């Protein structure tokens, strides 16, 4: 039998429960079955996944589609292509402390928001403000590293934070807060910014040189995702296998959260997991072009390719929490 094709795969961040599909696929030999040797490395952020792939250091990774849009606008030849849209709901959200008195998005005016520079949530705030008719002049944004947002929110240095809900929710839990009771969540998806977010992307070079490998990769990950949706305990075993430092309780809840809030949606039930709706994607591209003041609007085909997706029937994901 021929040598396995090695694919260097970067995660979006440090090991998280929501990445379990990859670990599960690896542990159960799904990649091997496709003739692939997938090496999974931890990442530096879902935006950086794009850089890592563009530079050639990685062949594939789990990252933010909005970063692809941004790069597809300026370097269409280099930008990676999304081949499997995992999270079809945006995790971008603003979380406010109840004590700050913020009840509606109108209340952001006159308050300080903490944002991590460069994260889509922070970058898209002007679009959010514009779309919802708020006065941007009155909203103060303070920059800080992502892992400082929740502590500073709790401490009261900021009134609300521009976050990923899947990250921030559990950060608050870990900071011994009750994210549901003491905090108010404003999801971008609910306020007119109906964006896509993280998924599996590959380099154009890999698509050109080894389309079979790409298809195999997607197939294996799809299998992993569907399996994990059924059995999160097995998923956590695989994650623990990859990184024994994780906090299993929290990561399991994070995995479940990702299904509940980001993956399972009416759209997914309609078109299956991994695919996108082109008109929604076009709209999303429009938001990004507006928010990042891009000069060129890429087409959905430049950003997402459904060429490698398994047939619709194989992409029937049923989530059961256990």
């Amino acid at each position, binding site marked *: 039998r021929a040598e396995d094709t090695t694919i260097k795969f970067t995660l979006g961040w440090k090991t998280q429960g929501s990445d379990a599909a990859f670990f599960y696929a690896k542990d159960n030999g799904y990649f091997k079955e496709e003739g692939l040797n997938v090496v999974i490395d931890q990442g530096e952020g879902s*935006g950086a996944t*794009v*850089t890592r792939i*563009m*530079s*050639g250091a990685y062949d594939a990774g789990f990252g933010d589609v909005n*970063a692809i849009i*941004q*790069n597809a606008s*300026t370097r269409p030849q*280099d930008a990676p292509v999304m081949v499997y849209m995992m999270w079809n709901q945006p995790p971008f959200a603003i979380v406010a402390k109840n004590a700050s008195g913020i009840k509606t998005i109108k209340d952001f005016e006159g308050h300080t928001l903490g944002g991590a*520079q*460069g*994260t889509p949530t922070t*970058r898209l705030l002007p679009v959010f403000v514009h779309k919802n008719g708020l006065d941007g002049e009155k909203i103060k*944004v*303070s*920059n*800080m*590293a992502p*892992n*400082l947002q929740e*502590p*500073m929110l709790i*401490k009261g*240095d900021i009134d609300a934070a521009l976050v990923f809900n899947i990250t921030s929710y559990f950060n608050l839990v870990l900071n011994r807060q009750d994210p549901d009771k003491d905090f108010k969540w404003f999801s971008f998806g609910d306020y007119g910014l109906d964006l896509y977010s993280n998924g599996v992307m590959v380099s154009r070079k890999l698509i050109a040189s080894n389309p079979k490998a790409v298809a195999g990769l997607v197939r294996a990950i799809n299998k992993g995702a569907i399996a994990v949706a059924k059995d999160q305990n097995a998923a956590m075993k695989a994650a623990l296998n990859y990184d024994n430092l994780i906090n299993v309780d929290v990561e399991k809840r994070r995995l479940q959260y990702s299904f509940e809030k980001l993956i399972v949606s009416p759209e997914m039930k309609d078109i299956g997991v991994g695919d996108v709706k082109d008109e929604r994607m076009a709209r999303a591209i429009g938001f990004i072009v507006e928010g*990042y003041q891009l000069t060129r609007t890429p087409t959905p085909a430049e950003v997402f390719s459904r060429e490698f997706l398994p047939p619709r029937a194989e992409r029937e994901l049923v989530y059961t929490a256990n």
Partner: protein
Amino acid sequence: MPVSDIRQKVWSGALIVLFFVAWELFCLMTGMSDLVLPRPSQIFVTLFEKFPILWPHIVQTLVTTMIGFVLGVALGVALGAVIGVSKTAYDTCYPLLVGFSSIPKVAVVPIFVLWFGSGTVPAVLTSLSICFFPIVVNIATGLATTEPELEDVLKALGASKLDILWNVGLPRTMPFFFASLKVAISYAFVGAVLSETVASNRGIGNVMMTASSNFNVPLVFAGLFVLAGLGVALYVLFSLIEGQVTGWATRKDNVIAT
């Protein structure tokens, strides 16, 4: 011999230029993507174009760094003097200081931010805490290795420990003090920028963070060049002072065989 001095300087300048030319050529020849390593020409162009925007950030970082640096030097000299003079202080402080220095400051910045809020204060503190150690080490070593004969000159006069420190220990240590300043000033910049990266609304660290999340790699490198430039500028400044203060130590006989 001022003529040969000038030739010397020109020669060094040429070598530095050569470095950048080599870099440029390397990038061109290997077809390096500017996402990985931009060419110096790109960087300089970006720097030039964005300079008006960068300027307030440069000032911010420079001011922060200088405050941290000055405090760091003061702390470093004081601690170095204590360690260099007292054996107990040596045995106690050195392990603690080495331990503290082995800790990446990235891990400490968040604590500063939570205590003092984001912005200038943590940047100053980070800058201070990263730059004082080389000074401590060199001052302490300089004092500990001061020739007893030199100290005896003052001791025989009944001079106090402070007198000896002031008149013998510190002057003797000057060449190595200036050496450590070169390390300290670079690290002071690193510290300030680090803190700005973690939590700040201004400063080069902030600019670089934004640029990097924008995939504007030339701007990131422009920021790095600004930092390098500031570091070198301060190095040159200290070199001038150093020339005045430590000339005695680098004397070479005017008439010397090769």
